[in-house]
């Protein structure tokens, strides 16, 4: 499809690919001492969130302990159940229900280091910690996630506003502060806002909006609250069919949608968000999803894109540049949702691939971008969406053994129960890498395909 002039670039990338393969070949050969005996290998995992924890659990079972040492590094010891942060402001959980010690999820035979990372020296296969220690590796997995960065939008973290009338809910501190602010909110304009895509859990701000509508209704003050959903996207969500459906749900709840809004700054004095094309929306309470970025040490190591995400192959997570570095979970640049479910499906396949790769066999378990997310819609109901790189979220049924089919893209009580049950599954099955009867690759079973005519209609209405 591309013109001939790019052959040069193709050839260059072929040359890089060959060097890349050579490097890995030497790594594989260095497994053996002169007498043929295997020497110890170091697998180093950066980040002990959902992705990093699942990786060490999966791989400790697969890699022999007499050959592989596995080490995981994190800056702190609290593992937070992040999906719970969305529900905490509405009183569903107390903070202690969402926190457990990271170490309690590591299997035997995994070393934990608590430290901040200064940088990676990818040419020397060393990670430098900010206390000066140097940790050598043979293979490295970067799983340091993504973090909300209010400092990236002028005015957002102004002390006059931050955690007084402007809140995030993707952090424990933000979620707790917002819970208190919601209790004291008795009317006015609530803006739910997304600064820039991609963000962690892209459905969460919509869920927050639906839950806020239900919360104020229950308190009997919904008629005193004007809710506005402000997004840089063209509609309520990223993909057309779901966007239309979720957009209608906003309409039904009398929530105004302000689309194509790319924030430039927040004016602290007038409590107004201002867009790049000079639109202004005033607020009494702003619940924002700040710009999300990968860890700063990735930028310091010269390994990230413009948002500090590590460029990798979207099917097997191998770094585009280094043959012994992978990035998993939210830390990579794959064009999938930044969500625990994506990390879970990805790591099921990655763990098979990794064992093949370090034994010189091809990585033949290709990831398809599978995501599966419950969407809370308020009043004890929820929706479920299931999609991948190619297939957008569709309506229909999602088959699950024992529990039975769950409705896709449709509100139901069972989907809400599914979401609440998920916290138990997360702590007891998911993190520990135990078997969960949901296939890693997306299936079309039960989904209703969209006809060409419907597709044209949806495109026309967008």
């Amino acid at each position, binding site marked *: 499809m591309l013109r001939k002039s790019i052959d040069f670039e193709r050839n260059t990338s072929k040359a890089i690919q060959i060097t890349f393969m050579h490097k890995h070949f030497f790594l594989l050969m260095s497994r053996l001492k002169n007498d043929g005996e295997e020497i110890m290998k170091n697998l180093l995992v950066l980040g002990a969130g959902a992705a990093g924890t699942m990786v060490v659990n999966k791989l400790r079972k697969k890699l022999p302990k007499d050959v592989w040492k596995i080490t995981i590094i994190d800056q702190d010891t609290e593992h937070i159940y992040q999906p719970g942060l969305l529900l905490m402001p509405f009183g569903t959980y107390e903070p202690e229900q969402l926190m457990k010690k990271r170490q309690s999820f590591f299997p035997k035979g995994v070393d934990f280091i608590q430290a901040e990372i200064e940088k990676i020296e990818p040419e020397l296969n060393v990670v430098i910690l900010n206390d000066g220690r140097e940790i050598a590796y043979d293979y490295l997995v970067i799983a340091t996630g993504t973090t909300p960065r209010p400092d990236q939008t002028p005015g957002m973290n102004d002390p006059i506003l931050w955690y007084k009338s402007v809140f995030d809910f993707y952090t424990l501190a933000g979620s707790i502060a917002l819970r208190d602010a919601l209790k004291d909110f008795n009317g006015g304009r609530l803006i739910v806002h997304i600064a820039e895509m991609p963000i962690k859990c892209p459905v969460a701000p919509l869920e927050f909006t639906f839950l806020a509508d239900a919360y104020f209704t229950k308190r009997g003050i919904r008629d005193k609250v004007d809710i506005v959903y402000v997004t840089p996207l063209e509609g309520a969500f*990223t993909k057309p069919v779901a966007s239309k459906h979720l957009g209608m749900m906003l309409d039904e709840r009398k929530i105004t949608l302000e689309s194509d809004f790319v924030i430039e700054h927040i004016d602290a004095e007038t409590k107004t968000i201002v867009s790049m094309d000079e639109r202004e929306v005033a607020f009494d309470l702003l619940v924002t999803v700040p710009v999300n970025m990968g860890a700063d040490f990735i930028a310091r190591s010269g390994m990230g894109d413009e948002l500090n995400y590590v460029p990798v192959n979207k099917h097997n997570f191998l770094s585009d540049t280094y043959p012994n570095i992978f990035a998993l979970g939210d830390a990579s640049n794959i064009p999938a949702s930044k969500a625990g479910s994506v990390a879970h499906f990805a790591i099921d396949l990655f763990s098979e691939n990794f064992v093949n790769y370090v034994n010189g066999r091809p990585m033949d378990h290709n990831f398809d971008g599978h995501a599966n997310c419950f969407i809370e819609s308020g009043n004890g109901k929820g929706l479920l969406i299931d999609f991948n790189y190619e297939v957008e979220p569709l309506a229909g049924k999602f088959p699950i053994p024992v529990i039975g089919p769950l409705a896709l893209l449709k509100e139901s009580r069972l989907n809400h129960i599914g979401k609440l049950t998920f916290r138990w599954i997360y702590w007891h099955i998911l993190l520990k890498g135990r078997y969960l009867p949901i296939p890693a690759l997306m299936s079309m079973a039960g989904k209703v395909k969209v006809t060409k005519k419907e597709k044209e209609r949806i495109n026309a209405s967008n």
Partner: protein
Amino acid sequence: MPVIEIAGKQVTVNDEGFMTVYDEWSEEIAKVLAAQVEIELTPRHWEVIHFLREDFKKLGESSTSRHTQTVGGFPIKEQFELFPKKPAKKMSYIAGLPKPKGCV
């Protein structure tokens, strides 16, 4: 995929009217596409378009607004001035590239 005629040439487009074949694009076609979205191309517009074409050749994906700002040196504010309301979408449309995918 539908094939339509733009500036006297056969051009393949998707359901939303975005060109799907990199090589079918020409500056003449870009002028017609720009007129479709009510934009008159100035030298600065062309700088952006040429950056987007080159960048796509290297990375195989359409540039996002942030990438166009950080790597191309065109501030997002200016992108909004040049391609009002929906810059990322309009820039790709005129440059004959797919809609940027990063939004998931």
